[in-house]
């Protein structure tokens, strides 16, 4: 029963339950208003995106700059399913909508995974900047395609243009705190467990030295594609969640500058640190939101902040360190030493 001695995990679970309870109670008592709740939800969604991108860029050492493309792919798929297939609206009771939403989320993950697979297979043999360019290219192609596809939908007598630059609107509000938190925690657990398994080790080995990994019997193509597909899957899931909180999707949300935002989160948090990605995603989402009062100077300051942070901590906020509960017991001593 060695497993039970992993106290950090127990504390983490306890902490999670307490945080969930406190936030829920505070929200019900209007101490945390809907706006704050929305920001918290967005923080978690961004964290899913950052962590999943970290799996690709940080742990496997690839250089993908097209994450937003997978994100909106998932968003569109899920939005399409709930809005146009199941025709969920603001009036649909939540208990009815929820199963449909879950289906939509799963479908979003699956389609993004498929797209990730189709893109990953040919391009992952390129390395660093060349891979970056190609992923930018694919990200933009995804955006261009969503910008191109538009059709008409009969909305109770009113024929409405859907897709294209008009985006997909009328998506029901289904992403709530509980659901997003569950997905967020699951994502962290899955990615953490993946990394601390022989599969994750293979990915890290590829990052460290591709040739050596290859010659130690690791099928590098398989693992690169695996990391890429896993990352895209979670990006798709995050996209589904995002679509159902913004209630609107637009091709520009999958563009290059959006991908760059997620990239910033990964590198600011620390390449190869789940904890770092979560902190950076939470931090940046909150900071850019709470810098609102300074108006037009917001982005100017944001730029300065990035420069200062990176100069002070070139390896990112966490470097490669992790919170103890994100490291299985055996591996923990290693991290303690580094």
């Amino acid at each position, binding site marked *: 029963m060695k497993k039970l001695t992993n106290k950090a995990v127990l504390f983490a679970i306890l902490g999670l339950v307490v945080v969930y309870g406190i936030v829920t109670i505070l929200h019900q008592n*209007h101490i945390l*208003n*809907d*706006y*704050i709740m*929305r*920001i918290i939800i*967005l923080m978690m969604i961004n964290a899913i995106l950052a962590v999943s991108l970290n799996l690709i860029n940080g742990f496997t050492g690839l250089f993908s700059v097209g994450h937003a493309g997978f994100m909106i792919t998932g968003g569109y798929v899920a939005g399409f399913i709930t809005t146009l297939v199941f025709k969920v609206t*603001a009036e649909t009771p939540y208990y009815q909508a929820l199963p449909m939403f879950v289906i939509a989320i799963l479908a979003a993950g699956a389609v993004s995974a498929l797209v990730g697979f189709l893109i990953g297979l040919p391009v992952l043999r390129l390395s660093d900047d060349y891979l970056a360019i190609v992923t930018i290219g694919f990200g933009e192609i995804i955006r261009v395609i969503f*910008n*191109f596809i538009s059709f008409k939908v009969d*909305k109770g007598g*009113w024929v*409405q*243009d859907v897709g*294209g*630059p*008009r*985006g997909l*609107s*009328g998506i029901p*509000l289904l992403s709530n705190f509980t659901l997003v938190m569950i997905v967020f925690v699951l994502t962290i657990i899955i990615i953490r467990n993946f990394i601390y398994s022989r599969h994750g080790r293979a990915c890290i080995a590829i990052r460290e030295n591709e040739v050596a990994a290859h010659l130690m019997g690791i099928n590098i193509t398989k693992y690169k594609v695996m990391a890429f597909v896993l990352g895209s899957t979670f990006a798709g899931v995050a996209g589904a969640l*995002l679509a159902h*909180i*913004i*209630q*609107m*999707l*637009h*091709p*520009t*949300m999958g563009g290059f500058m959006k991908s760059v935002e997620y990239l910033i989160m990964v590198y600011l948090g620390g390449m190869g640190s789940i904890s770092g990605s979560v902190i950076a995603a939470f931090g940046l989402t909150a900071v850019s*939101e709470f810098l*609102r009062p300074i*108006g*037009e100077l*917001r*982005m100017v300051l944001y730029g300065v902040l990035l420069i200062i942070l990176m100069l002070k901590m070139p390896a990112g906020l966490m470097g490669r360190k992790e919170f103890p509960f994100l490291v299985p017991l055996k591996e923990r001593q290693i991290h303690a030493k580094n």
Partner: protein
Amino acid sequence: EKKDGDSAAPAPTEVRIGIVAPITGDAATFGISTRNGAQLYFDQVNAAGGINGMTIRTFVEDDKGDPAEGANAWSKLIDQDKVVTIVGTVMSKVSLAGAPISQNKGIPMISPTSTNPAVTLVGDYVFRACFIDPFQGLVAAKYATQTMNVRRAAVLYDAGNDYTKGLAEVFRDEFIKMGGEIVAFESYATGTSDFNAQLVKINAVAPDVLFLPNYYNDVGLIAKQARAMGISAQFLGGDGWDSPDLFTIGGTAIEGGIFSNHFTAESTLPAAQAFVRDYEARYGQKPDALAALAYEAAMIVVDSIRRAGSIDPTAIRDAMATTNMETITGRITFDASRNPIKGAVLLEVRNGAAVYKATVNP
């Protein structure tokens, strides 16, 4: 949620109003005009004693032209700042992210410039101050076929922008319906500054009219490149043209271009004249269409609150739905879908200025 103590409190002394616009990012030009226009009117009202003794307090939020940011702005204004009405925002895609929140929370909103018909369809708390695509497209098509009496038209629009795409498609459909022929229907990607590829294609089919449903900065460049290439077609366009920068960017190339607009600086309406004067005095430049529409939206909001006689959002909404007032563009009312019923003017570019040509009523 809005219950906590509100009813017991003494009569409110301020009206909280939100303004949302893309103040930073690459649509900042439009956002700042919008904010300036709305802010100007609210400040004027305050200077004149406020609304029923209450002063207006504005909360300005930036949406960066991004739906997610826009939704956050809406949520902040409603949940945190407790505004009773929102003026915003410029881009339809962002308004579409804000509208469900307004609808859900019962806080009326009026977008100055979002032309996508879907925006107001979100619900009965969502209004707009501009005409929607079908009307302007119709005006241009009518002018081309009936006044100019030509049959061959080409269109060049921004494919990444729902406003220009919508307008382009309506123009195309109406023009064909009126017996014309669309000889070229070309688009470009947002942010392009080289339009030669499309223009070469257009030049090859020699249209009589080139419809440019784009914003002024693109129109200026397109006009330059088109004329340089020897395209002699008449340029037609919509309210996106309305900015003094059209003439500085387009130079002589844009001379003779005709576009529909909400109002004209030559307008004899005292409100319009005062607006142009005040705006220039305060911001050091002539207002563009976005500023004018934001100003107009602000007028509608203040008028609705006055008539509602309260700052209860539902009452304001109800009042807004029955708007019937003189604005800087003339009399304005809303149809059942909360789109304004108002006339358009046709303007012609002459000597680096937009000159009044005709009025078109719906």
